[in-house]
């Protein structure tokens, strides 16, 4: 509607990401590079998907099942890229550990690894927000606004900003959980993350129904809260584990 409104939409979708960036990532150059690399990964996966689907687009059917196939293939492919990202990270971790040994005489601590996972997840989330929401926001800087029929409560820009905020949270923290799960070999979490992703993506299918976004968006946020809580519990558990280990080892030293 104006530059102010446009900026408002940008900040709705990217505000928490910006604060995460400034507080955690900005001071550590390696995390900035990880962020850029994971954004690139996400973009490449998206380009491959769009290339694969190019022949079938634009989907003119009013029914919902082509969209289901679209979503399931896309999410499946993205989970595969998450796995590839993890494998690359494992190779990089070897180099990083060697570097840390040489320079600082210690290895990467698990908080470092968590932070790298956070940066990776944030990269995915920010790339999602940029490509699904920001790239469409250009008209919103002008004098008018745009409503879609299916969700006529709010302008399209506002709805997509809110949805991409929810997805940003989901992407960021599920990457932390996923990296931890791969590292520990926790099969339950490894399966949970793709399921949550598919669930969240399928929630957006509810938006296809007229007026559906009033249900779909809050459900998405419920999933986001679940992911957040799961991640918090996992990190808290690890913190207390490490703390106990510290205390035990120092007890052994003393005695």
């Amino acid at each position, binding site marked *: 509607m104006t530059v102010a409104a446009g900026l408002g939409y940008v900040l709705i979708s990217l505000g928490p990401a910006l604060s995460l960036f400034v507080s955690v990532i900005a001071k550590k150059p*390696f*995390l900035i590079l990880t962020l850029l690399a994971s954004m*690139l990964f996400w973009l490449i996966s998206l*380009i491959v998907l769009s290339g694969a689907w190019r022949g079938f687009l634009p989907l003119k059917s009013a029914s919902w099942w082509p969209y289901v196939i679209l979503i399931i293939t896309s999410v499946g492919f993205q989970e595969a890229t998450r796995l590839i990202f993890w494998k690359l990270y494992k190779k990089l971790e070897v180099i990083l550990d060697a570097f*840390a040994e040489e320079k600082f005489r*210690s290895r990467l601590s698990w908080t470092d690894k968590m932070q790298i996972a956070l940066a990776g997840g944030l990269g995915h989330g920010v790339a999602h927000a940029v490509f699904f929401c920001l790239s469409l926001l250009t008209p919103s800087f002008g004098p008018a606004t745009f409503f*879609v029929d299916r969700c006529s409560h709010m302008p*399209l820009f506002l709805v997509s900003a809110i*949805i991409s905020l929810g997805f940003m949270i989901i992407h960021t923290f599920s990457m932390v959980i996923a990296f931890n799960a791969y590292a520990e070999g926790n099969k339950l979490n490894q399966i949970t993350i793709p399921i949550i*992703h598919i669930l969240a993506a399928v929630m957006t299918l509810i938006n296809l129904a007229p007026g559906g976004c009033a249900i779909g968006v809050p459900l998405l946020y419920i999933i986001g809260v679940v992911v957040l809580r799961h991640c918090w519990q996992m990190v808290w558990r690890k913190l207390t584990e490490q703390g106990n280990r510290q205390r035990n080892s120092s007890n052994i030293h003393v005695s």
Partner: protein
Amino acid sequence: MAEANPNSNPAVLETLGEEMVRIVAPVSACMLLVVLLVTALSSSSGGGLASIATIAYSDDSSDSLWDKLKGALLSSVSFVVLITLLTFLLVLLFYLRCIRFLKSYMALSSLVVLAFLGGEVFLLLISRFYVPVDVVTFSLLLFNFAVVGVLAVFLAKVPIMVNQGYLVIIGVLVAYWFTLLPEWTTWALLIAMSLYDLAAVLLPGGPLRLLVELAISRDEELPALVYEARPVEHLPGAGRRLWRERRDLASNSSSNSNNLEAGDPASQDTSLVIAEEGPSVSALTAPFLQQQLERHGEVDLEGIGLSSSGAIKLGLGDFIFYSVLVGRAALYDFMTVYACYLAIMAGLGITLLLLAFYRKALPALPVSIALGIIFYLLTRASLEVFMVQCSTNLLMF
């Protein structure tokens, strides 16, 4: 006793990749400014620039595709030929040790870029945003801006932020001017410049390679527009030195202390990054990448390959052509901008890794421009349709 301390070393994440970020940040700033300028001024820009790049062909929208292609190729080839001639001239002058002439020529061309191009851009901005300012104030401010810029870049000792800021501004201005070219010419020019860069740096007879070897053999610095990232400081309490001091020390080839222990000058590897300032309004640049390494006695870092004491130099031409690509992408849509930005960053990262691996002069343009063009075409062809389809139906994943 080395215990496993969970909060031990944030230092690893903080030091690794620092030089890369110090190059990524100004390149991103330059691209951001060019995109903002292009989107703010695109509606009001007139066509028809009489310039060197259009000496062969000036775009006319009623021409057929083949005509446009031919015209664009002709323009870009003539541009590249011109740049090659000028670079050889530069090599000749450097060989004949006309350093003062080169320096004053560079200063003059920076002045022209800042005063005339900058003045034109500011005038366009003023008329676009209806800024109330009168002629006298404007000319005074512009004069100060241009003169301080020339001093900051070439002639005086200034804080490094001012120097870097002015280099970025020069890059922005020239890149904005380049985006005013017709579309096909811009793309043809980018491809031609990447190929020229590749040839000029890597082929044995290439002018830039000759320049590099001359500079190394004489152990002098080239008078050129080069963006040098601040070196990573390791000594605690080592203050920030003035920028000029360090370069003077380097050119005197005395013991070159770089906020670190004095490395042995003879063991300095210098590979090169140069951007030269061409004639009149068009800043011609022959960009490639330099890394100045200093070998300590103690630590010789392999693995990642970026020396912790290295300062990466990037020619201003790289800044300019990356921003031209992104600016031209901005003239289409913002999605292409984001895609091309990520592609260029990826290309830059790859080039820096190759630099750390090969440790010699490398062309910085080809990889990034190639990736940028590929991503631009892919985005325009397939990604955009996909995204619009999904987002307008509020389907996201």
